[in-house]
């Protein structure tokens, strides 16, 4: 076991885990933030997407050492009251079906908009392609991103 200092959702956290523990398990098991999901465990599905220093990363394949000193944002920290434009658009478009992939989708979409405030369909598809939704809600994901990009409203 080793001790690491992380900044998660704006708070300094001291965690004691085995070296090499994936960030996903630090978030879920050590910190109890279970909004971030385990999907494939091999960085292929995007369910575990969180932000590290504002960038969307796959937390299942990122060792705890790599984020020490960085700022981690999980779905719980995206906003205090589900008021992030992407969250509001997600609710307005009723995007999820089963919901399992959706925190990863939301985090990926939020990172996309931070980088590119008015993405085209093609840019959305390219950026979001690695976040897999088994329920096939891609059309609503795309609509919600456009909605958030234009500041809400239909």
């Amino acid at each position, binding site marked *: 076991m080793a001790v690491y200092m992380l900044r998660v959702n704006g708070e300094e956290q001291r965690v004691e885990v085995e070296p090499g523990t994936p960030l996903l398990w630090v978030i879920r098991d050590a910190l109890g933030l279970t909004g971030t999901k385990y999907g494939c465990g091999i960085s292929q599905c995007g369910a575990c997407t969180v932000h590290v220093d504002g960038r969307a990363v796959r937390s299942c394949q990122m060792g705890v050492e790599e984020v020490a000193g960085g700022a981690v944002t999980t779905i719980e920290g995206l906003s205090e009251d589900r008021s992030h434009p992407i969250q509001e658009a997600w609710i307005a478009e009723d995007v999820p079906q089963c919901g399992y992939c959706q925190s990863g989708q939301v985090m990926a979409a939020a990172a996309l908009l931070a980088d590119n405030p008015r993405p085209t369909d093609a840019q959305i598809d390219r950026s979001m392609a690695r976040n897999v939704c088994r*329920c096939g809600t891609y059309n*609503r994901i795309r609509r919600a991103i456009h909605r958030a990009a234009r500041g809400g409203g239909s």
Partner: protein
Amino acid sequence: MELRIGPMKRGQRTKLTGTRGLRGAALATLTVALAVPVVHGQVPYERIVGAIDDSESWLTYNGTYDGQRFSPLDQINRENVSALRPVWMYQMGPRVGLEVTPIVADGVMYVTSSPSNVSALDLATGRPLWTFEPQIREDLRTLGFPPVNRGVAILDDMVYVGTLDARLIALDARTGAVRWERQVADNALGFSFTLAPLALDGKIIVGTSGGEAGIRGWIDAYDAKTGEQVWRFWTIPGPGEPGNETWGGDSWENGAGATWLTGSYDPELDLLYWGIGNPGPDWNGDVRPGDNLYTCSVVALDPDTGELRWHFQFTPHDTHDWDANQIQVLIDAEWEGTPRKLLVTANRNAFYYVLDRETGEFLHGKEYGYQTWAEGLDETGRPIVIPGTDPTEEGTLVYPSLQGSTNWFSPSYSPQTGLFYVAVREMGAVYFKGEAEYEAGEYYLGGGERALSGDEAAGKIRALDALTGEKRWDFPLLTPPWSGVMATGGGLVFGGSNEGNLYALDAESGEPLWDFQAGGASRANPITYLHDGRQRVVMSAGTAIIVFGLRD
């Protein structure tokens, strides 16, 4: 086997999708289809009559006029079904669950979604070819049912949709353009369409929702080409008509008798069979003394005139909201040594019935779901009601609940196994009686119901011997289902659960052979067809249509 048909069909289809022509249909059907004049479109009536052999299509709500929801296709079967996986899926849109049965013809799948939208999808990919979104009035009245749509009918080159605000609309099958539109009834009074219309020879048959709004129900026929009304059958007889004496006073005026689920048809007998809903008010029978014909009945009508040929009432003077809006399944079988044309149905009131469909004669009935309201049926099929099972002001616990032992979702009959498959709800309810005063366009209930839930409610797919109603097997479900079944020539029964599991069962034993967690409740009926020579099975879950197939 691949068959190409004449240049007429190919020419008609080029603009539509650019996919290949109609193939694989049975030779007999093709002969008929080619014999019709050029003015006919893609799906003439004769082709619907022969739908059982039209393997690349799903032409009516239940696949065939007989309501069996059985397909002889056997490419997907007991041996290989475990390898079934999605080919494509189509997310219909937000909020309201799907209860649609897709119609498939000539390389196109026609689906509907709430409120009354129609989409034509490329059968190969799910890509939308056109979408029709009618403007629905903002002060819409949907009293007693969710704002769903269960599908379109297809006839010749048009598809037909009933809207929540009680319009019947004919669309060009190729473009989605409106060919005609008719305001059938006044939605402000509670009339509404959720059902898939039924296309007969030159006519479109529809029935209305609104059984909780004190309507006077009807079954209507419209000219398929012009939208002109051909006839109307009132489900509640008026003064002077036989059956009106089964209504005390003027209670017939708001007697309900909604007709909100697609009927069945026998082309040889030329008889149309339709289930009629509960009497109004639902739970207070005091204001409507008598048997309340033709509520909670099946009626057999002459499709040319709407004239009543016979009726059979399952639940006289119903006080539990047990509409007879279930699928009437037409089967031909030997009955006590003689070949007979039968109508079999699993009613919402927990009994399974075998009737002679030429005469309406009651032949046999048997309890198929848990119930506490009747000791059984007498020799005429009339229930022997247990005293004290009517709703009261304090509440009366009765099984089944108002949704019944089954409901709108389709059962299936397999001629191969001789079994009738039905999704059964095991759920009781406390029924309350209250005041009932009719006010136009408002609920007319006369009470209420509190369903038992949690551990006390469950469900199953039950296989019955179609002639005796004896249980053959059960496949248990965690919660009371809201999703239909389909049996196939591959020895399978497909179905879905509230928990989002789509599954295939061995039709002989009920053993589960395949399942797929779809992430949303399954609330619709399965269909199947061949596409490019490969069998597809379509089920829905959540807001998605999912097309399944085997790996090539």
